[in-house]
C-alpha cells in the first residue's frame, strides 16, 4: 500500500459573516495517496476554493482533521504553516503569480529563499534542474513579460517543483490558457505524475478532469462523487488531435 499524502476526516469550515454562519465545508473525508493525480471539481460556491486553501495550509479547518505527509495541520501556528507550505506543497495558480521584472530563474529560486540551509549555489542548481524539467532550459534569463502564458505557467510549475514537495497543488492552472496550451500543460502534469509526483488539481472543466486518474466532485460543501478514472486520456494524444494551425480557445 502506498503512502498517504493527504488524509482528511470530517473536515468542516465555517465562516461567520455578521450574524450568519456560512458552512462552506460540511464534513468531508478523503485520502490521497502518493503518486495520485486527483482533480477536485465543483461549480463556484461548492466549497472548492475553501478546500483548496485548507489543503494548501493557507487556511485552517473549523473542525475535523487534516494530515499532510503525516503532519497534523490543525492548531499549527502561522509560522509552522509557512514551513509546511514551503517544504511539502508546490503551488500553481491560475494567474501564474510570477514576480514581475524578475528572471524565470529567480522566480523558480523563490521558495528556496525561505528554506533554511540552502546555499546560493545549491539554490541555483536546483532552479536550473526544475526549469529543465519543464522544458524551459533556454528561457532562464527571461522575465515573465518576455514569456507566453504557457511558458509563464511552466515557470510556475518549475517553481512548485523546486522544493521537492510531497504534493503539487494547482488551482485552475489552465484557466487562463487556450486549449492547445492547456493540453500542453496537462501533458506536462501527466509526465510529472508518471515520475511519481502527487498532483491535486482544482478545476471546473470536465475535459481537464479526464486527464487525471481520480476525480472528487464537490457540491454545497459535500463530496457528491469520488471516483477512479478508468479511462485516463493522454493529453499528448489529445493535443495531436487538435487542428494544427488554428488556435482554439
Amino acid at each position, binding site marked *: 500500500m502506498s503512502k498517504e499524502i493527504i488524509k482528511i476526516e470530517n473536515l468542516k469550515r465555517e465562516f461567520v459573516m455578521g450574524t450568519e454562519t456560512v458552512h462552506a465545508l460540511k464534513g468531508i473525508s478523503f485520502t490521497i495517496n502518493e503518486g495520485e493525480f486527483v482533480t477536485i471539481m465543483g461549480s463556484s460556491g461548492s466549497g472548492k476554493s475553501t478546500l483548496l*486553501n485548507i489543503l*494548501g495550509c*493557507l*487556511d485552517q479547518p473549523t473542525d475535523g482533521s487534516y494530515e499532510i505527509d503525516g503532519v497534523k495541520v490543525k492548531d499549527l501556528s*502561522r*509560522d509552522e504553516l*509557512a*514551513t509546511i*507550505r*514551503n*517544504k511539502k506543497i508546490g*503551488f500553481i*495558480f491560475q494567474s501564474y*503569480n510570477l*514576480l514581475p*521584472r*524578475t528572471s524565470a530563474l529567480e522566480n523558480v529560486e*523563490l*521558495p528556496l*529563499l*525561505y*528554506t*533554511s540551509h540552502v546555499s546560493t549555489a545549491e539554490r541555483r542548481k536546483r532552479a536550473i534542474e526544475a526549469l529543465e524539467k519543464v522544458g524551459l532550459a533556454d528561457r532562464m534569463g527571461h522575465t515573465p513579460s518576455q514569456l507566453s502564458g504557457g511558458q509563464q505557467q511552466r515557470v510556475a510549475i518549475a*517553481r512548485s517543483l523546486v*522544493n521537492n514537495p510531497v504534493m503539487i497543488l494547482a488551482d485552475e492552472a489552465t484557466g487562463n490558457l487556450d486549449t492547445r496550451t492547456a493540453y500542453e500543460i496537462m501533458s506536462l502534469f501527466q509526465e510529472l505524475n508518471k515520475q511519481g509526483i502527487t498532483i491535486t488539481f482544482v478545476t471546473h472543466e470536465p475535459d481537464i478532469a479526464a486527464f487525471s486518474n481520480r476525480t472528487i466532485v464537490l457540491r454545497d460543501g459535500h463530496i457528491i462523487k469520488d471516483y477512479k478514472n478508468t479511462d485516463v486520456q493522454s493529453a499528448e494524444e489529445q493535443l495531436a488531435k487538435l487542428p494544427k494551425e488554428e488556435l482554439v480557445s
Partner: protein
Amino acid sequence: MRLLNLLKIAFKAIVLNKMRTLLTMLGIIIGVASVIAMLAIGEGSKESIRANISSMGSNMITIRPGADDRGPARGSGGNVQTLTLQDYEVIKAKSELISYITPVVNSGGQVINGSNNWPSTIYGVNPDFLNIKVVGLQSGSMFTDAEVSAASKVVIIGQTVVDNVFPDGQDPVGQMIRFNNIPFKVIGVLEEKGENTFGQDQDDVVIAPFTTVQKRILAIEYLNQIMASSISEDDASEVVTQVTEILRSQHKLLDSEDDDFTVRSMEELISTFSSTSEMLTILLVAVASISLLIGGIGIMNIMYVSVKERTKEIGLRLAVGGKGSDILMQFLIEAILISITGGVLGVILGLGSTVFIEKFLNWPTSVALYSIVISFAVCAITGIFFGWYPARKASALDPITALRYE
C-alpha cells in the same frame, strides 16, 4: 531567511524603482546634508571666534572711559577724558587678581621710512602689554620701564608695518622711522597674529611707551584705555566687579550715578559671541531636522504604496513558505536601505557643500564627527521607525486575501 538574501531582495526592489526611490531619498539626502553643513558652519564659526578671541588674550580685561556703549544712542567713549593715569595706578595697587596691567593711549598717524609711508596706529603702553596680549617679539626687544619713565622715542612695530615701510626686506630693528614726523628708533618687531574676529589686522600696529605717546605725540594727560589681564581665566568676572568698585570710589560716583567707564572681559565677549552663534546653529539644525523628518514621512509613504502595490507578491511569498517575520524584515530592510543610502549620499553632499562653503564663501567650517554619526544614526532610526508600520502591515496580511488581491 538569511540577511544576505533579504538584502538582495530589498536591493532588487529598490533598483526596480530607481526614480521613485531616488525621489524618496531626496528628502533624507537634503535633510542629512543640511544638518551636517549647518553644524559645520556653526562649529566653524564658534571655533574661529574662540581661537581669535583667545589669540587676543583670553584673560584680557579692558577698561574704557565713558558708560557702556552697547545700548542705543550713547556717545562714543573715545573722547571722554575720565580715565587717568591715577586710575591705572590705583587699580594696579588695589586689585590682587590682576597679573598685568598697562595704560593705553593711541593715535592714528603716518609711519614714514624714507620714501615709504603707511598709515597706522600707535599704541602707547607699558612693557606688560605683550603679556596681556599674549604676543611675543620675532626680533629685537621690548622697551623697559626706564624707557617708559624717560619717554624714550623707541617703537616696536607689527609685521604689516614692516612690510609696508621696509619693503626691500631689510631688518627694521635698529632703523629709524618717523611717526607723524617724530623720529623713533625701531627696537623690535612683533610676532605675526593676523586678523582678529572683527577683521582687524592685529599686525598693523606701532607700539611705544605710553609716556612718549602722551607727551610727544598727543600732548594729553588722560588715558584712552586701561588693559589688564586676570591671573586666571576663571577670575575674569570677579576682576570686572573688583575694578568697577575701585574705579567707582576713585571717581567718587554716587550710588545713583551710572559708571563713567566700562569694564569688559574677553570671557564675556566670547560667551556673547558663542551664544549668538550657538543660537543660530540650533535654529539651522532645527530647520534641517524638519527636512529630515519630512524625508522620513516620504519613506513611510512610499513604503505604504509599495506594500499596497506588491500585495500579490506578498501573498505569493507567504504561499511559498515566507513567514510573517520574513516579510516584515524584507520591507523593513528596504526602508532602512533607502534611508541609509539617502544618509550616505546626504553625508557626501553635506561634506561636499561644506568644502564648497569653505572654499568659495570663505566661511570657516568645521565638520564635527558627531554630526555625521548623529545624522547617520537618525537616518537608520528614521528608516526603522517609518518603515515599521508599513512592514508590519505587510507581514500581517492574510495569504489568501493577498493572493486574490487585484
